[in-house]
């Protein structure tokens, strides 16, 4: 039975733990189809969304999920420029402790920030993205979306395409896909692969056609436009030509296939208009599933549940 205190990342998660989250997400997904999209399990629980990095969609998704499980929500927003690592973070934590907040959902530009807070404060911490490290709820909603369509992920061919050097979504997805037994291939230019990637336990290739041929799922990462000016790639056009997913490349996929993207998309760069709007694209479904998955995570980490499990 799922009994973790925090959700800091998918590293070290067993397949069973992940499936338990996804099973719960299914029930919450059904709640989203009702007229009254609200259930009471987290009534009386206060959750603070601490977003130290700008985000609209993840934050909104979490806020919606929190309200839909009847929690009380407080939002903290901080501009990254005024925050230094270490001391200021600690001040923030101490302020929160003083306000008796039960759970924290945190996004921060520094890898390990949520782990730091989990160690220092009494509340439960959910990582909404830390630096280039992990974004566990995104990976969970990706896995949920895949499972809804394909059922068992064992042996399923999944291609992750994009900036693996900077992407926390790719990292979390790799942990999750491996735990569930998928056959994962990572495709990126050599400049956007981190050192040690060969130890990740996935197939690595620079060749998009190799990665995408016979794949059941392709999960396309956004190429940050700044990468062009920092010398990681020669130009957006070249990236798009060599690694961009267009209709022609999609025809190489397995007959039974699905196209994913965590958003926001750069239409015309990593993904073409046609592919983004095609029938096999589940990009909007991912967004809906995101709320359900986050509701499930909140439910499973709820202090009331934890208290009951500990007795």
């Amino acid at each position, binding site marked *: *039975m799922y009994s973790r205190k925090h959700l800091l990342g998918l590293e070290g998660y067993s397949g069973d733990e992940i499936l338990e989250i996804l099973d*719960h997400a299914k*029930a919450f997904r059904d*709640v989203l189809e009702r007229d009254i999209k609200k259930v*009471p399990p987290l009534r009386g629980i206060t959750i603070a969304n601490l977003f130290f990095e700008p985000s609209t969609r993840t934050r909104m998704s979490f806020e919606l999920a929190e309200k839909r499980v009847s929690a009380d929500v407080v939002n903290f927003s901080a501009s990254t420029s005024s925050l230094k690592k270490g001391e200021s973070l600690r001040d923030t934590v101490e302020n929160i402790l003083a306000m008796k907040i039960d759970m924290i959902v945190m996004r921060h530009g520094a890898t390990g920030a949520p782990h730091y807070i989990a160690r220092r404060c009494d509340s439960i911490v959910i990582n909404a993205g830390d630096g280039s490290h992990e974004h566990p709820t995104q990976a969970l909603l990706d896995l949920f979306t895949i499972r809804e369509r394909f059922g068992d992920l064992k042996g399923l061919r999944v291609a992750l395409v994009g900036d693996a050097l900077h992407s926390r979504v790719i990292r979390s997805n790799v942990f999750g896909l491996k735990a569930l037994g998928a056959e994962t291939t990572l495709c990126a230019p050599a400049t956007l692969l981190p050192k040690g990637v060969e130890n990740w336990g996935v197939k690595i290739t620079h060749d998009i056609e190799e990665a995408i041929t016979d794949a059941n799922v392709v999960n396309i990462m956004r190429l940050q436009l700044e990468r062009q000016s920092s010398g990681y790639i020669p130009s957006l056009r070249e990236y798009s030509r060599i690694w961009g997913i267009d209709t022609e490349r999609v025809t190489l996929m397995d007959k039974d296939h699905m196209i994913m993207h965590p958003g926001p998309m750069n239409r015309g760069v990593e993904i073409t208009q046609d592919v983004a709007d095609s029938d096999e694209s589940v990009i909007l479904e991912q967004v809906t599933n995101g709320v359900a998955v986050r509701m499930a995570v909140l439910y499973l980490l709820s202090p*009331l549940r934890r208290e*009951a499990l500990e007795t």
Partner: protein
Amino acid sequence: MIELMDKTHLERSLKRIALEIIERNKGAKNLVIIGIRNRGVYLSERLKAHIEDTEKVEIPIGSIDITLYRDDFKEITASPYIGGTEIIFDVEDKDVILVDDVLYTGRTVRAALDEIIDFGRPKSIQLAVIVDRGNREYPICADYIAKQISLKESEYVEVRVKEVDGEDQVVKVIKE
């Protein structure tokens, strides 16, 4: 383990309850049936069949899982998985027959009432149970009961159904 009701007894009680429901509601035109997961669902299917046999009307049937509405998280350790609620019809202005196997503290039914009301405003909710074992903690009572008994806290009653337990039977068990 002591048998309180055998297969035949259980079947007769269900038929009797079906007729009581029809009598009290003056027919079956406005009825919908909702079974509380898990065993309530199977029992509700039987009731539906009996009512339809007599009245020749089709009755919408649904199921609810009250896990998300519980007031006590300790219950979840016993059955952690959320089986899912399926109510695909409108409950607005309907007479809802809520079905469960055992009525004890009343907390499960309280949760079920809250969940049903989130789907709409029924005309009425009537509760049908196989066993009412008393010791209520909330002011809840059943409208239709197959058997009323009184048990000690160390005893519990199990309504077994063919679909899950292999046979239809109601038994009393003493906890070690």
